[in-house]
C-alpha cells in the first residue's frame, strides 16, 4: 500500500464504485441492471476525474473579475474531460436502452442468458 490511500479517499471510493459497476455490467443477466452498472462505472470515472482536478481552496475555473492567475482556480482539464465523458455515456446508455427495448419486445424478457437460449433453440 502506498502512502496516499487516506488522502485519496475520494479516488478510493470511485475505484470501488468502478468495480461495482464493472461487475454489474459483466455479471448481471438482467439488461437493465447491466445498464445501471454501466452508469455506475461511468460515474465512478467522473468522480475520479473530478477528484483529480480538485485543488484545495480554489474555485471553479470561471474567470471572476478578470483574475487570470493560476493560484485562483482548479485544474480545468478534468472538468472538460468529464463533460465530454458525460455525453458519451448518455449516448451509450441510450443505445443500450434501445437495444434492450428491442430485445424485450421480441423476447419478452430482460434476461440475456434466457434470450440467448431462446435464440439458440430457434436459430439452428
Amino acid at each position, binding site marked *: 500500500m502506498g502512502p496516499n490511500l487516506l488522502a485519496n479517499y475520494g479516488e478510493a471510493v470511485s475505484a470501488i464504485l468502478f468495480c461495482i459497476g464493472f461487475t454489474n*455490467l459483466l455479471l448481471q443477466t438482467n439488461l437493465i441492471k447491466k445498464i445501471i452498472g454501466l452508469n455506475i*462505472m461511468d460515474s465512478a*470515472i467522473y468522480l475520479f476525474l473530478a477528484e483529480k482536478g480538485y485543488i484545495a481552496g480554489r474555485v471553479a475555473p470561471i474567470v471572476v473579475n478578470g483574475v487570470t492567475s493560476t493560484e485562483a482556480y482548479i485544474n480545468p482539464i*478534468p472538468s472538460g*474531460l468529464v463533460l*465530454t*465523458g458525460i455525453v458519451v455515456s448518455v*449516448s*451509450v446508455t441510450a443505445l443500450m436502452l434501445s437495444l434492450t427495448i428491442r430485445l424485450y419486445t421480441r423476447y419478452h424478457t430482460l434476461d440475456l442468458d434466457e434470450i440467448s437460449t431462446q*435464440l439458440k433453440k430457434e436459430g439452428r
Partner: protein
Amino acid sequence: MNFICNFPFFSILLSLFSGTVCSMLPAKAAKVVNRVVIITVGILSAILLLYLLSTGEPFVYWMGHFPAPWGNEIRAGVLEAGMALFFCIIMYLSMAGGAHKLYGEVVESKHNLYYILVNLLLCSLLALVYTNDMFTAYVFVEINTISACGLIMIRQVGRTIEAAVRYMIMSLLGSGLLLFGLCIMYDLTGHLLMSNIKESVSLLVANGEYQIPLIVSVALMCVGLCIKSALFPFHAWLPDAYGYSTVSSAAILSSLVSKGYIFLLIKIIYRVIGFDIFNSTRIIDVLFVFGLMGMIFGSISAIRENDIRRMIAFSSVAQIGYIYMGFGMGTQAGMVASIFHILSHAATKSLLFIAAIGLTDVSNGSRKFIDLTGAAYRNKWAGAAFMAGSLSMVGVPLFSGFISKLLFSQAAVQVEGKMLASLIVLGISTVLNAIYFMKTVIRIYTPVKESSYSGITFREMKGYAVVLVCFIVLNVILGVSSQPVVNMIEQGLAMFA
C-alpha cells in the same frame, strides 16, 4: 507547411461531414456519397503516403490554433498514411462486395442510416489512426464502438441484436478500463497528448516515480483494448456478431474495427509508453500467452463450427491471437510481423466473408456445410476466392498469409524464451487452420449429383466478381512483393519513436 499535410485532416472531416450529409439523402445518393468519400479519402491517403515516403519525416498537424501541449493534434507518418490507405481499400471492396446483400437483409428505408454509420466508422478509424491525443482517441473509440454496433444490428434478426448487446457490453467494459487507465495516466503525467505523455513517462521511469500506478494504467489500457479487439477470452460476442450481420458489416468489422483498436494499442505502445518501457513490463508476457491461447482455441472452436460464417468468425479470434503473439514477443520484428498480419488478415478475412456470402447465396441461403456442397461450381468466382483466402490463411506461399507466418517465425526465433512456444503453437495453429479451411474448400468443391440449387453466372454478378478478383490480387501482392510493405512498416515504426 505543404498543402498535402492537410490531407489527414481533410480525410477525417470529409468522412465526418459526409455522415451528417447522408442523413438528409435518400439511400441511393447516400450510397454514392459513401463510395465517393471512401475513394477520395483513399486517394488522399495515397498521395499523403507518397509524400511521406519522399520526405521521410512525419509531421504533426494542429487541430486549432494552439500547439502541442495545449491544443489537439493529429500526426501523420508512413504507417498512419499506409494504414489509412489500406483501410480505405478494404472498406471500399467490402462495401462493394456486400452491396447486393444489403437489399435483402436491411430494410430499404434504413439504407441511408447504414451509409451514415459506415462514414462515421471510417471517420473514427481515420481519427484513431492519425490522432496524437489520448482523449481524442477515447472519443473516437466510442464512435467506432457505437457505429460498429450499429453495423452489427442493422440486419435485424434476434441473433444480431443479441450479438450487438454482447458486443456493446464487452466494448463498454473495455472503454471503461481504457478511460480509467487514461485518467490515471493523466494524473501521473498531466498531459493528454501522446508525445508529451511519453516524455513525462520516460522521465518518471528514469526517476523511478509512480511505478505501480504507471504499470497499472498501462495494463488497464491494454486490457481495455484487448477486450475491444476480441482477444481470446473476450471473444464471446464475436462469432454471432460477425456471423449474422450483413456481409459488408462482417467484413468491415473483422478486418477494420478490431484492427483499429489494435492499431491504437500499437500507437499507445510506441507513442505513449515507449516501446522499451512497455517491453520491460510483464504485460507483454500476458499478451503473449493469451495470444497463443487465442490461436489454439479460436481454431478449435472454428473446427467444431457447422456454419461457414461463424467458422470464419472464429478464425478471426485465432488470427487476432497471432497479432497479440507478435506484440508479446516484445521485439521490433515481432511488431512488424503483427502489423503485417493486420494487413494480411484484413485483406484475407474480408475476402473470405465476401466469398462465403457468394457461396451461401447459391445454396438457398443456408450456411451449413452440408448445404454448401458443390457451391463452388455454382458460383465459380466465389469458390475460387474462398479457396485463395483459405490458402492464404493456411499460409501457402504466394499468398499474404505465408509472409506473415514467415515474419512471425523469424521474429520468434530471435526471442530466446518464447521461441519454442510460439513456433510450436504456430505450427499447431497452421494445422488447425488447414483442417477447417481445407475442409470447407473440399466441401465446396465436391459436386452434388442432383442439385436443387440454381447457379449464378458471371453476368449476374459482375461487380461482385470484380471485387473478389481485387481482393485476391491484393492478397497476392501482399504475398509476393512483401518487401516494400515490410520496409514501409519498419520505416513507419521508426517514425513512431
